[in-house]
């Protein structure tokens, strides 16, 4: 994933219209890049669903052997729907090579040009991510729709309009949250040389705690030291759940009413914190960086 258009272009003429035009050009270049890989086009997107196939078979076997009709409130069909929905969430919240790209940019010094020029690096990254995501959706919409349609039997009836609105809102917020969390992560490179291991550790925790592997509700029976507080409750306080679990649970009707409102509010709180942290880290990091000179 490359930032194919220079940020100078975005800033070169004043006014917002040229910026929009260069953003549009970035979009088309990105699209061309994607289309250049012919076989990747359909096959690549479909291949991403393969791990889910294995998971579905696994859970089916689990349900077959246990005498329960549901696990932590999820029937077998629910689980299939859940995994598919987390794929959709991940399509919004996953930021491939964002942290890695930022850390590389810092390490090899190309971040200098953003310090000298009146360009907002984070703003630029956000804009380019939006472009990349849009391209991804254009390319992936057909395989996704095909799979979801094919599996429609596993889904419960569609929720009401208000829930759908909440769902869409949570998706958009998860995009922003995912972006700012990983951007902050990448900026650790201002202080540490070996960032890839830290990034990997983050990915590990995120994978485990975001509900990507299993619905967080399944941790509800696991006690923590504190009475009345299960492991699920603790994990759900963290921001990770919004990158996979939360929107999926909303659509499936596992989170409703006040709980839903609280969840959205918490998501917004975490987003504000993430943006704030990101800005702060950038400010401190660039101060430290330019202190080194040269």
């Amino acid at each position, binding site marked *: 994933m490359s930032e194919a258009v220079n940020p100078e272009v975005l800033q070169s003429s004043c006014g917002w219209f040229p910026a929009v035009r260069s953003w549009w050009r970035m979009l*088309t270049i990105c*699209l*061309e890049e994607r*289309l*250049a890989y*012919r076989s990747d*086009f359909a096959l690549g997107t479909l291949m991403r669903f393969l791990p889910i196939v294995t998971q579905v078979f696994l859970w089916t076997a689990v349900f077959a052997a246990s005498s329960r009709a549901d696990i932590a409130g999820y029937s077998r069909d629910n689980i299939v729907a859940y995994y598919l929905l987390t794929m959709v969430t991940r399509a919004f919240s996953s930021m491939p090579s964002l942290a890695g790209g930022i850390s590389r940019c810092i390490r090899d010094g190309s971040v200098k040009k953003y310090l000298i020029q009146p360009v907002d690096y984070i703003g630029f990254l956000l804009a380019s991510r939006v472009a990349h995501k849009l391209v991804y959706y254009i390319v992936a919409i057909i395989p996704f729709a095909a799979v979801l349609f094919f599996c429609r039997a596993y889904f419960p009836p569609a929720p009401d309009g208000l829930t759908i609105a909440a769902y869409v809102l949570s998706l958009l917020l998860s995009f922003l949250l995912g972006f700012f969390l990983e951007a902050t992560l990448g900026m650790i490179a201002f202080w540490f040389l070996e960032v890839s291991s830290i990034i990997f550790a983050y990915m590990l925790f995120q994978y485990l705690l975001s509900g990507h592997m299993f619905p967080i509700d399944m941790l509800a029976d696991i006690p923590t030291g504190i009475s009345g507080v299960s492991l699920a409750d603790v994990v759900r306080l963290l921001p990770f759940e919004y990158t996979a679990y939360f929107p999926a649970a909303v659509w499936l009707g596992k989170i409703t009413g006040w709980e839903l409102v609280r969840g959205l509010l918490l998501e917004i709180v975490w987003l504000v914190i993430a943006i704030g942290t990101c800005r702060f880290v950038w400010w401190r990091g660039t101060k430290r960086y330019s202190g080194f000179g040269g």
Partner: protein
Amino acid sequence: MYDNSETKSARVIEVNGLAKEYRVYDKPEGLWASVRGLFQRKNRIIHALRGVDLSVGRGEFLAMLGPNGAGKTTFLKLLSGIITPTQGTARVLGHVPWDRADEFRRRFALVMGQKNQLWWDLPAAESFRLHQEIYRIDPVRFARIRDELVDMLGVARLLGQPVRELSLGERMKLELIAALLHEPEVLFLDEPTIGLDVVAQHTIHEFLRHIQKQRSVTVVLTTHYMKDVAALCERVVVVTGGTILYDGSLEQIVDQFTSHKVVTLDLESPPAAGQIERFGFSCEVNGPRVSLRIDRSRIADALPKLLASQQVRDVSVEDVPLEEIVANLFRGVANRQADVEAKQEVEAV
């Protein structure tokens, strides 16, 4: 499988009608073309080599001269067995190269300019040792040859350093040594002096000449530098657009491809306008120095007249520079080729 009689015969390399084609896809430009590119791709055929015939005897030193993309490297890759041809046959030391028989691979060596075959992070001495293992060289013999070659090129102090720390010229020398350690009967060199400074080029030229004489190795060297050719060999093969344009000695190129000579006059004073031009030859006047192109058959006639007409301080009669002849050759063929290719592109989907 190889033919025993071939080893004793003089023909070390026999090539007949060797041809190699590649199919290449054009990358679409622009968004709409990219979408169309999903369903339909324009492709064309590149004729890297078009039916080449060649015969090389034992101990010959042959240079293949040609511009980039002429097919020289493709030719060497075919003879080394790296790729297989679309058509035609070849035998090197009696073997079919692309069968890649171990027996064959032990008897030749390939050195590619700017491409490393030595281990990047290890000192050359290690690479040499590995080479000995792979080629199963007798240790006593190996030590003797290695020391001799290292001595000749004066690189003894470089053997302990990792190869990546050395300059291009130094690396090239070590590559050459590595190639000769197993005493190959045939040596293929692909643009060995490319990117090297003049001194390094000269050293390598000397080295190659000496080695070739001493061990009567058959050498095929590709290059686009005239200097390599002039310094090293008598037989030149000019390659352009995948075909052999000329195969013979260097001097004969001049005879074959040009009909005139360059006459340079150093006059006492710059000539008056039109004074030289009236003779009717194409000429270039630079102050007191005049250079004319005169058809060979007319030199004997024209020269005395020219000398008589001016105050001449110095005169020289020379062949058209080789570079120029060859460059013209390349250009002429290239133009013809481009026309043919353009026609083919329209025909292919």
